[in-house]
């Protein structure tokens, strides 16, 4: 039983880091990214490859994050050149490039991926705790950014880039920062996943995965830290709680994307805010 709980907590933790990392790029800084799974994959492949060479976990995790962050900055450079709508397709393309590349490289296992990855050196529950601490740190970091001047600046860049320039904001630097932080964190999630799953396949990091991560962000409320935390927990637990939900996982994700964006684009956070505002209005109206 404890093995199952450890497993569940691990998955929630990894998903949370993934979702929060995308939230920084898309939610905080307004840069659409439909290829986020590629960075998850870059972190995973880096960590997996190094771990099989005997490099210890304490080094492979940062290495995975660094690699993902580095490539993320390079991808960020593309965001500087193209308009919003183009960015969605470009990032989608990055996702396919990663997949297409990895599937062909023999030294990375091609279609079969990398297997026989050593364990983390901790028992499952302890490892789950490690993941949990990492996830909590990412939550704290996200909140820090949100409340800082960086968060304020990201809001301005997301609102109107040209206006941001006229208030002295170095828009390219901030966009690259958002990409770098977001992708590095996704790489961290990838590294953590590697020691959890012990085997990685290219298909784990495909477009569908990018959409799954996006779903967690969107349903939580793009830009809201607590909203994304809540939606990640809910969407990860859902297939566990309901067998039917598990089989129809993608269908439910798709359906939720449609319903949420159609009726409440602010996601859970938006709904919460609307509810609180209505509650306060009612209270004020009372004699």
């Amino acid at each position, binding site marked *: 039983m404890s093995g199952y709980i450890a497993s569940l907590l691990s998955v929630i933790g990894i998903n949370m880091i993934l979702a929060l990392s995308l939230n920084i790029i898309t939610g905080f800084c307004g840069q659409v990214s439909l290829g986020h799974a590629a960075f998850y994959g870059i972190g995973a492949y880096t960590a997996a490859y190094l771990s099989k060479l005997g490099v210890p976990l304490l080094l492979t995790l940062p290495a995975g994050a660094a690699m993902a962050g580095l490539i993320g900055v390079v991808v960020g450079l593309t965001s500087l050149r193209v308009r919003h709508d183009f960015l*969605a397709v470009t990032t989608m393309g990055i996702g396919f490039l990663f997949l297409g590349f990895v599937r062909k490289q023999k030294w990375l296992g091609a279609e079969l991926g990398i297997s026989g990855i050593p364990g983390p050196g901790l028992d499952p529950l302890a490892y789950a705790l490690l993941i949990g601490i990492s996830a909590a740190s990412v939550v704290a970091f996200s909140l820090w950014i949100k409340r800082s001047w960086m968060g304020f600046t990201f809001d301005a860049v997301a609102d109107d880039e040209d206006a941001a320039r006229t208030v002295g904001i170095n828009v390219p630097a901030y966009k690259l920062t958002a990409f770098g932080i977001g992708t590095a964190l996704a790489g961290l999630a990838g590294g953590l996943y590697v020691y959890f799953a012990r085997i990685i396949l290219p298909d784990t990091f495909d477009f569908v995965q990018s959409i799954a991560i996006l779903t967690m962000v969107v349903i939580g409320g793009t830009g809201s830290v607590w909203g994304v935390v809540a939606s990640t927990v809910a969407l990860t637990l859902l297939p566990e709680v309901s067998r039917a939900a598990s089989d129809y996982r993608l269908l439910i994700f798709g359906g939720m994307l449609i319903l949420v964006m159609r009726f409440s684009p602010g996601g859970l956070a938006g709904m919460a805010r609307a509810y609180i505002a209505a509650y306060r209005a009612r209270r004020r109206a009372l004699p």
Partner: protein
Amino acid sequence: MYFVELGVKGLVYGCMYAMMAVGLTLVYGLLRILHIAHAGVFALGAFIAVVVANATGSLALGVALAIVLSAVAGVAIYRFAYQPLLGHPAFVPMIVSIGIFVVMQEGFRMVFGAYGIAFEHNPYYTATVDLAGIRLNYVEIAMVIAATVLLVGFGLFASLTRAGIGSRGTVSDPQMATSFGVDPVRVRYLNFIFGSGLAGIAGALVGLLNNYVEPTMGGLVSYKALAIIVLGGLGSVRGTLIASLILGVVESYGTIYLADIFDRDAIGFLFLIVVLMVRPQGLLGRG
């Protein structure tokens, strides 16, 4: 000779991409929305064709119904998903579109199974023709003819008829167009009908070409179509057509020369990214 044959095959694929991409670029030009659900319409066309053809024994009926029902689906998507969300930033309808695509794809998987259905009576699958030393499948020829006829017809319609000119007016200056008595909603419906019908035909033809239809077939073609419309300059039909053919040819040659590094699908995106870095507005876009 092989070289030429590669080029011709590339053009054939280009025609298929063009039929998909035109629908996408029309929607973008009118509404500034990335109509990712178009992939679902494509697959729908394929499934309708195969189901009807197998049930009635008539391929013609299958293709005809594929066109009609795809067109209906496209309009329904506009009416229920996009029209109510026109006031929101483009991110919102794009996410709904992604949701619709996922739901459709999963729906196909649940109804028809993950492995899809094959055509039971498809004489065209193996019949080939030798044109000046190049072997071409009947379906491939049909694809080129269909694409040429339909797209040229559309071009003539757009430049010569009152309705066509009116539609173009709506894209460049909606208010002006309205004051001339053009109904923007009707224009949108027409564009969705035409674009989605085209996707339906494309789906049916691809199904015939491969002799079977499976749930995920929409995805890849659609992602490429998105890459194409960006490449051609979002909203430019001419650019889209040219980009479609170029992509088909680039993929054809690229697969041979880059076979060890990237798989076929990644090549298209690699080309897209390279072009965008050099010309951020696309091959024919206006910046």
